[in-house]
C-alpha cells in the first residue's frame, strides 16, 4: 500500500531546528571562534585599537603556560578545589544513598531531609559567597564567636587571611552546595535498578555491604559518570564563590584563584588583557574537552567492549580456520 499524498514532512525538521541553529551559530559558535582568534592577537586595553596577529601566534599561550606562575597556580587551584570538594561530596552522597535506599533501615523523614540537604544548591552562589565571607569575619564573626564559645579556639582566627583555611572554606562551600544534588541523583539511580537484582542477591545470602558494592555500585556506573562529568565541567568554571568570597578576588596570595577568576581578572581588571584571557579560555576549553573524552573512554560500558572483543576473536578464529582448510 502506498502512502496517501506525497507531502514530504522532512523539511519541517530543518525549519523547526533553525532558530536553535541560528542562535547557536551567532551567540555560541562565533564567539568561541572569535575568542580563539583573539588568543593569537595583541588585543588589549579599554580603547579599541587596530589588532594584529602576533609575530609568533602562540606567544600568549607560551607566556601563560611557561612564564606566568599565577596562571599555573590558577590551574592547580581549580583542580585542588574541585578534588577536595568532589571526593567528600561523592562519598557522603553515596553513604546517604546507601542509608536512604536500604529497606531494612527504613529511614523516616527522607522527604524532609532531601529538601533541606538540597536547599543550598538553589540559593544564589554570589549570596552564599558573601554570606560565608561575613560569617567567617574577623575578629567577631558568627563562626569565630561560635568556635570560641564551644572552646574549639582560644583567640579569634583570621580564616580569610590563611591560605589553607581560605581554600578549605571555598572547597567546603562547594561541597555543601552540591552533595544534596549528587545524593538525589544517586538515589534516583538506585530506584532505577531492576529490583530482581536485589532479590537475587538476597536469595544468594549477600550481606548489606556486599549488595552495595557488588550490585548497587556497578549499576550506578552510568549515573556516576554523569555526576563526575557535570561536576568536572562545573568545577572548571568555578567562579562566583572564589570571586566574591575574598577581596581581592583569588586571595590570600592567590590561594583561591581559579582559572575563571584569572580569566575575568585578566580581561576586565587592570590592563584589560583580552588576548591573555582569550588564550587562557582556550586552554581551559581544551582541558575540558580532553577530560570529558577521557572520562567517556574510561567508563564506557565494559561488557559491550568485551562482546566486541569476543566477536573479533571469533572472526579471527573463523578466518584462521578458513585458511587452515
Amino acid at each position: 500500500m502506498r502512502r496517501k499524498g506525497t507531502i514530504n514532512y522532512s523539511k519541517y525538521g530543518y525549519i523547526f531546528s533553525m532558530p536553535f541553529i541560528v542562535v547557536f551559530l551567532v551567540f555560541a559558535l562565533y564567539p568561541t571562534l572569535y575568542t580563539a582568534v583573539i588568543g593569537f592577537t595583541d588585543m588589549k586595553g579599554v580603547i579599541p585599537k587596530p589588532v594584529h596577529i602576533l609575530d609568533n601566534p602562540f606567544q600568549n599561550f607560551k607566556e601563560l603556560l611557561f612564564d606566568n606562575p599565577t596562571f599555573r597556580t590558577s590551574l592547580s587551584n581549580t583542580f585542588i578545589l574541585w578534588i577536595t570538594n568532589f571526593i567528600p561530596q561523592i562519598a557522603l552522597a553515596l553513604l546517604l544513598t546507601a542509608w536512604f535506599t536500604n529497606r531494612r533501615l527504613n529511614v523516616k523523614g527522607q522527604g524532609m531531609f532531601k529538601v533541606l540537604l538540597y536547599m543550598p544548591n538553589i540559593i544564589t552562589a554570589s549570596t552564599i559567597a558573601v554570606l560565608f565571607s561575613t560569617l567567617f569575619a574577623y575578629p567577631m564573626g558568627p563562626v569565630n564567636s561560635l568556635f570560641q564559645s564551644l572552646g574549639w579556639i582560644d583567640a579569634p582566627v583570621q580564616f580569610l587571611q590563611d591560605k589553607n583555611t581560605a581554600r578549605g572554606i571555598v572547597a567546603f562551600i562547594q561541597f555543601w552546595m552540591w552533595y544534596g544534588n549528587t545524593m538525589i541523583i544517586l538515589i534516583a539511580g538506585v530506584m532505577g535498578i531492576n529490583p530482581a537484582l536485589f532479590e537475587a542477591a538476597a536469595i544468594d545470602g549477600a550481606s548489606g555491604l556486599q549488595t552495595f558494592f557488588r550490585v548497587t555500585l556497578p549499576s550506578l556506573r552510568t549515573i556516576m559518570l554523569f555526576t563526575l562529568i557535570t561536576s568536572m565541567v562545573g568545577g572548571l568554571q568555578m567562579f562566583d564563590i572564589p570571586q566574591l568570597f575574598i577581596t581581592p578576588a583569588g586571595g590570600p596570595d592567590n590561594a583561591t584563584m581559579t582559572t575563571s577568576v584569572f580569566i575575568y581578572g585578566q580581561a576586565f581588571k587592570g590592563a584589560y588583557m583580552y588576548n591573555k584571557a582569550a588564550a587562557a579560555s582556550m586552554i581551559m576549553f581544551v582541558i575540558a574537552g580532553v577530560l570529558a573524552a577521557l572520562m567517556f573512554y574510561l567508563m564506557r560500558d565494559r561488557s559491550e567492549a568485551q562482546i566486541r572483543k569476543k566477536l573479533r576473536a571469533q572472526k579471527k578464529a573463523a578466518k584462521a580456520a578458513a585458511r587452515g582448510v
Partner: protein
Amino acid sequence: MAKLESTVGLKFNKTIIYIVCIGLALLSILPFWIMFVNATRSTAEIQSGLSLLPSTHLSENWDVLRGKGFDAFRGFLNSFIISASSTALSVYFSSLTAYAIVVYNWKWRQAFFTFILCVMLIPTQASAIGFYKFMYQLHLNNSFLPLILPAIAAPAMVFFMRQYLLSTLSLEIVEASRIDGSGEFATFNKIILPLMTPALATQAIFAFVASWNNLFMPLILLTEKSKYTLPIMVSLLRGDIYKVEFGSIYMGLALTALPLFVIYFLLSRYIIAGVALGGVKE
C-alpha cells in the same frame, strides 16, 4: 539471640543515621538562619556575639542599605525581566528543536543530535571574551538582549526534552492532527506543547533559577548601575562602603535570597523530582 543482637545493632545504626542526617540538615539551615536573624540586628549587636533570635533593627538596616544606593526593587525587576524572558525562550525553542529531532526524519537529524551532545559540555567561559567583544561591537553591552537571546539555543534542555518526547509522544497524535488538516506548526503549538507541560514546568524552574543566579555574564556585560541584576548588587555588598555596616550587609543578602526561599518551599517537591529526573537521563 543472634536476631536480638542484630535488632539492637540496627537500632544503634539508625540512631547514628538520624544524628548525622539532623546534623546535616542543621548545617543547611544555620547559615541562612543567621543571615535572616542578623538582618534584624544592629551592627553593634552583631559585633557583640552570635544570637539565634531576631532583634528589632530591621528598618534601620533597611534605611542604611537604601542610603548606600542598594536599590533592591530595581535589581529584582532587572533580574526578573532577564530570567523570565530567557526561561520562556529556552523552554519554547528547546521543545521545538526536540520536536524537530523526534518527529521528522531529516537527513542531518542524527548528526545534529550528536552535535548537541558534544556542545553540552562546552564551558561558558570558553567563549566569554569573544562574546563580550562581539556584543561590544554591536553596542549591546548594557542591554539585556545578550543575556536573553542566547537562551534560544540551550543544548542540555533540548537533550532533556528529546528524552521526554521519546518516552511520551505517540506519533499517531501527529498523524491524526495532519488528517484533521492541522498545519505542522499549529500541531506543535496547540497539541504537542500542552502535552509537554510537566517537562516544561520542570525545565522552566531550573532555567529560571540558573538565570536568576547567574553572575559571570551580567558582571561582564552590565556596567550601568540601573541595569544591575541582584547577583551583581550582592557582589557590591562586599565593597569598602559596607565595611562597618554588618546589619545592612545581612539585610541585602537576605533580600536577594528571600524570593528563592519562597519559590523553593512552594515548589520543593517538583524541584527534587526534577533533579532526580535530570540524573536518570541516559
